[in-house]
C-alpha cells in the first residue's frame, strides 16, 4: 500500500531542510538566516498549495493517492504512515500559512537569531507530523517532540517570567501525553499486536465497545477508561477547563510568533486529537461522555470570557479569549451532528486566523510601547487614543477583533453559527447559556477597544509609528482570510464535508 506520491513527506521534511540550512549559515549572517527561513516557508506553502490541488474533495476518509506507508519498526508493527483527509488538510494549510507569517513577524528578533529560526522551523515540521501521522506511535512521537522546541522558544526568547512559563507548559503537556502513551500501548495489546495495532484508521470504528479491563479486581469497560486517559491528554492541549492554567502563562511570556503558533495551531492539535483518535477509536465512550464534554465546553466559554474581562494585560485578555473560543469547538464536537462537527472544524481554522491576527497586532504594538497594560497596576492608563495615532493599525485591529467576536460577514460568525445550529437540538440549555458567552465576548473585546483606542491620547502614545510595509504585508493574507471565509466559507466546508460526515455517521450508530 505504499504511496504513489511523496508529497506529504516533502512537506513534512522541508522545514528540516530549512533547519539544516540555518545551522550551516554562520551565526553572524543574521539577514541571510532570516531570508533562508522565509524562503523555506514559502516553498513549504507552495507544496501545501499543490497538496490542495491534488486533494479530492469528494472522498471521505484518507486520500489513497497521497498516502505513504513504510515499515519503521517491524517488531512492533510501527509504520511511517502519512495521510490526509478533510479534517487534517485545513490544519496543514493553516500551519504553512502561519509559520510563513511568523517568520516575517520575527524579523525583529535580535537574540540568538540562528537558534531561534532553527527551532521555529523544527517546530513547524513536528506540527506537520502531528497532522499527517496515521500511525499512533508516529503521532505520539511528533506530539511529544514538539514540546522540546516550544520549551526553548518560550524559555529563551520569552518575557520576564519565561522560565516558569516554559517549565509549566512542558510539565503540563508532558503529563497529559504520558497518559496517552499508556492508552496507546494498551490498545496495541488489546488488538493482539497485529499489523494494524498502531494504525489509527484501522483501530477506529468502535471495535472496543465490549472489551473489558480488570483493575484491582473490578471489571471495567475498556473504552471508557482509556477514553478518559486520551481525553486528559488532549484536553490539556485544547485547553479544557480545569486543565487550562498553563495557557495564560505560556501565552503572556512567549514571544509574539510563538504565541501565534501556540494559539493558532497548537491548541488545535488537542481538538484534532479528539476528531482523529479519541472519537473514532472509542465512539461508544464518546457518545457516553458527550454531555460531560459539552458542559466542560460551556464552562470554557463562560469562564474564559469572564477571565478575559478581568484582565489588564491585553495579551492575557486574548489568551483567555482563546480559552473561551476553544470552548465553542468543544461544544461543536460534543454535539456530534453534521452542523456541529463542521462548525467545530471550521472554528478551528477560523480561530487560528483571527487569534493569530490578535496576537500579531499585540506584538506590533509591544514593539513600540514595550508594555501591554490596558490599565497599569498603579491605575493609570497604558494606552489611549490609539485610533487617531495609528489609523492603519486600528483598521486591521478592528477586523481582527470583529472576526474573533463573531460579527456577521466575518469568519468567526459562520463557524459559531454552525456550532449553535448543531448543538441546539441536543443541548438546548447549554446553547442558551453559550450565547451568553458570545455576548460576554463582545463585551470584553469592545471594552478593551474603547479603553485602548478611544479617549484622550496619552503622552506616550504620540511617539508611536504606524504599521510599516512588512507588517502590513504579513497581516494582509490573514485579513483576506477572515473576510473571504466570512462571506464565502464554501471552499473550507467542501474540503472537510465528506470526512466530517463519515465521522458523524460513525458516531450516530452508537
Amino acid at each position: 500500500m505504499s504511496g504513489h506520491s511523496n508529497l506529504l513527506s516533502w512537506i513534512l521534511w522541508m522545514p528540516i531542510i530549512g533547519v539544516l540550512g540555518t545551522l550551516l549559515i554562520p551565526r553572524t549572517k543574521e539577514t541571510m538566516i532570516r531570508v533562508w527561513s522565509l524562503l523555506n516557508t514559502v516553498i513549504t506553502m507552495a507544496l501545501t498549495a499543490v497538496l490542495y490541488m491534488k486533494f479530492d474533495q469528494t472522498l471521505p476518509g484518507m486520500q489513497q493517492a497521497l498516502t505513504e506507508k513504510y515499515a519503521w519498526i517491524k517488531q512492533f508493527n510501527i509504520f511511517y504512515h502519512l495521510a490526509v483527509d478533510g479534517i487534517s488538510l485545513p490544519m496543514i494549510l493553516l500551519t504553512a500559512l502561519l509559520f510563513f507569517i511568523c517568520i516575517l513577524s520575527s524579523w525583529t528578533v535580535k537574540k540568538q537569531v540562528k537558534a531561534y529560526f532553527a527551532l521555529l522551523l523544527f517546530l513547524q515540521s513536528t506540527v506537520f507530523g502531528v497532522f499527517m501521522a496515521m500511525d499512533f506511535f508516529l503521532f505520539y512521537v511528533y506530539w511529544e517532540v514538539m514540546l522540546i522546541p516550544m520549551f526553548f522558544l518560550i524559555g529563551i526568547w520569552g518575557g520576564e517570567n519565561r522560565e516558569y512559563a516554559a517549565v509549566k507548559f512542558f510539565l503540563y503537556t508532558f503529563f497529559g501525553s504520558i497518559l496517552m502513551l499508556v492508552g496507546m500501548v494498551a490498545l496495541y495489546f488489546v488488538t493482539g499486536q497485529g499489523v494494524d495495532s498502531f494504525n489509527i484508521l484501522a483501530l477506529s470504528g468502535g471495535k472496543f465497545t465490549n472489551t473489558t479491563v480488570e483493575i484491582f479486581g473490578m471489571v471495567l469497560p475498556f473504552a471508557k477508561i482509556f477514553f478518559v486517559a486520551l481525553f486528559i491528554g488532549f484536553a490539556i492541549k485544547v485547553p479544557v477547563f480545569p486543565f487550562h492554567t498553563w495557557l495564560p502563562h505560556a501565552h503572556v511570556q512567549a514571544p509574539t510568533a510563538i504565541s501565534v503558533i501556540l494559539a493558532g495551531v497548537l491548541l488545535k492539535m488537542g481538538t484534532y486529537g479528539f476528531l482523529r483518535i479519541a472519537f473514532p477509536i472509542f465512539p461508544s465512550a464518546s457518545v457516553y461522555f458527550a454531555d460531560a464534554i459539552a458542559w466542560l465546553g460551556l464552562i470554557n466559554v463562560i469562564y474564559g470570557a469572564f477571565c478575559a474581562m478581568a484582565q489588564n494585560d491585553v495579551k492575557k485578555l486574548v489568551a483567555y479569549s482563546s480559552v473561551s473560543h476553544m470552548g465553542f469547538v468543544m461544544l461543536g464536537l460534543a454535539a456530534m451532528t453534521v452542523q456541529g462537527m463542521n462548525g467545530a472544524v471550521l472554528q478551528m481554522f477560523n480561530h487560528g486566523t483571527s487569534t493569530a491576527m490578535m496576537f500579531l497586532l499585540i506584538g506590533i504594538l509591544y514593539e513600540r510601547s514595550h508594555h501591554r497594560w490596558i490599565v497599569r497596576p498603579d491605575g493609570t492608563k497604558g494606552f489611549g487614543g490609539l485610533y487617531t495615532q495609528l489609523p492603519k493599525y486600528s483598521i486591521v485591529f478592528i477586523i481582527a477583533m470583529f472576526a474573533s467576536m463573531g460579527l456577521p460577514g466575518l469568519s468567526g460568525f459562520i463557524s459559531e453559527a454552525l456550532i449553535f445550529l448543531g448543538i441546539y437540538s441536543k443541548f438546548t440549555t447549554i446553547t442558551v447559556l453559550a450565547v451568553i458567552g458570545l455576548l460576554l465576548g463582545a463585551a470584553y473585546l469592545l471594552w478593551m477597544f474603547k479603553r485602548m483606542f478611544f479617549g484622550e491620547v496619552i503622552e506616550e502614545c504620540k511617539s508611536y509609528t504606524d504599521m510599516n510595509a512588512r507588517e502590513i504585508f504579513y497581516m494582509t493574507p490573514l485579513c483576506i482570510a477572515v473576510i473571504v471565509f466570512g462571506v464565502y466559507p464554501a471552499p473550507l466546508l467542501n474540503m472537510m464535508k465528506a470526512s466530517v460526515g463519515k465521522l458523524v455517521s460513525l458516531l450516530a450508530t452508537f
Partner: protein
Amino acid sequence: MALNYLASISHYVPELILCLTMAGLILIESAYDRGVKGSAKGMMYWGAYLGLLCSFVYLFKALGTEPLQIFTRSIVIDSFGTLAKMIMVLGTAGAIFLGRQSLDIYEEVKSEFVILTIGVLIGGMLLVSANNMLLFYIGIETLSILSYVMASLKKNDERSSEAGLKYSLYGGVTAGLMLFGMSHIFGVLGTIQFTEIIPAMAALTKAQALVLMPAFLLFFVGIGYKIACVPFHMWSPDVYEGSPLPVTNFFSIVPKIAGIVAFVRVTNTFFGGDASIVRETWVVLLMIASALTMTVGNVAAIGQRSVKRMLAYSSISHAGVMMLGVLVIDDLGARAILFYAVTYLFMTLAAFFITSFVQDHYGNDHFERFNGLMKKHPLMSIVMVIVMFSLAGLPPLSGFVAKFNILAAVVSKKYYVLAVIAALNSVVSLYYYMKVVRLMVFKDAESDEPVKGFIFSNQVVITVIALPVLLLGVFWEKLIVIAGGAKIFLQ
C-alpha cells in the same frame, strides 16, 4: 549440554582474558614506581582497553550460539548473559576513561582504580552467568567486596571512608541474609542448581511452596541491596555521594546492570514455570517494591543541590523502572531490560562525564555551576540536553524507546495501574532533569568566558557516547531484534 573442564575453558575465554588482564595490570603497577608518569601509566590504560576489547570481541562471537552449561553445569553461557556482559564491558571501558580524566581520583591510586573496575567486572560477569546458587553468591560477593574498596578510594576524605564502611556493613548483613535464604531454598527443593529448580518447584505441594516464600524474601534482600531497590536503598545515596565521581559512575552502571540481569535470571528460574499462588504473591511484592523504588528515587532527586547526588537518586528510580521488566517474568520483559540497559549505559556515561568535568573545573558539582553553560561550551551543553531529555524519556531519544518497551511489557500483562505509576514517575523525573537544562540554557553565568580544558579527544568521546542516545531513538529495530534474540537458558 554439559561439557568437561577442558572443553569448558574454550567457552570461558572472555572472563579468562579479563583475569589475565587484571593480573598483568597488577604486575605493571608493582613493577613501576608509584607516581611515575608517562609510559607506565599509558601502558596501564592501553593494557586495560586491550583486555576489554579482546573480551568484547569474544563475547560478540559467542552471541547467538547454542546455550551451554560449562564447568560441571555451574556456569551457563547463553545469549542473554552474553549480551549483558557486553554491556558491562562497555560500561567498564567508559568508567576507566572517565577515571583517567577525573581529578576526583588521586593520581597515585589511578592504577588501582583500573584494576578494581576490572575485578568488579569479572564478579559481575560471574554473577550474570551463574547457574547455581553458590556461584551466584560468589559472584555477588566478588562484585561487592571490590566495590567496598572502590567506594573508599579517596583515602583522606572522611565521606569516602564513611561510604566504604557503610557499603560494607550493609553488604555484609544482606549477604548473610541471602545465604540464609539460599540454605532454606536448598532445604525445601533439595538442589542448588538453577536448571533443576523448575521441575522441583512444579513438584511442590502448596504448603511446601508457602514455606519457600520467606526464603525467597531473604534471597531477594541480597539482590535488592545490590540494585538499590526500596527498602534496601538506604546505603546508596551516601555511598554514591562519598565515592569519587568516576566510581559513582561505575557503580550506577556495572553492578546495577549485573544485579538486574541476575535478578531476571533468578526470577525466571523460580517462577517461570508455574502460575501458582507463590508466583502471584511474588509478583505483587515486586510490584510494590518497584513502584516504591521509582517514586522514592524520583521524589528524593528533586531536592538535591549536587548534580552527582541527583544522578545517584535518579539511578535508583531507573532501577525501579527496570524492575518492572523483571516482574513480568517473560521474554518481553527480558528484552525490554536489555534494551533499557544499553541506553541507560550511554546516557549515564555521558551525564557523569560532563558532571565530572564541571566538578573538576569549578571545584564542585552544584546545580549553579551549570548556569549558562550553553554559552560557555555549546557542544558539552547540547550533549547534556540530549542526555537529560533522554533520561526523562522524551522522544525521539533512546530513553523514550527504552521506557516504551518496559511499558509495553507491563501493559502486556495488563498491569495498568503500575504502568500509570511508571508513566507519572517520568513526569516527576522530567522536572529535575529539566532543571539542569534550564540552568544551562536559560540562565546567565557569572562570567561569559568560554570553558577551556575540555580537550579535543574528550569532545570526540562525548560525541561518540551521545550518538547512540540519539540514533537508538529512531533506528532501534536492529537492537530490539538482538535483544529479543538473547533468550534466557532455563532448563
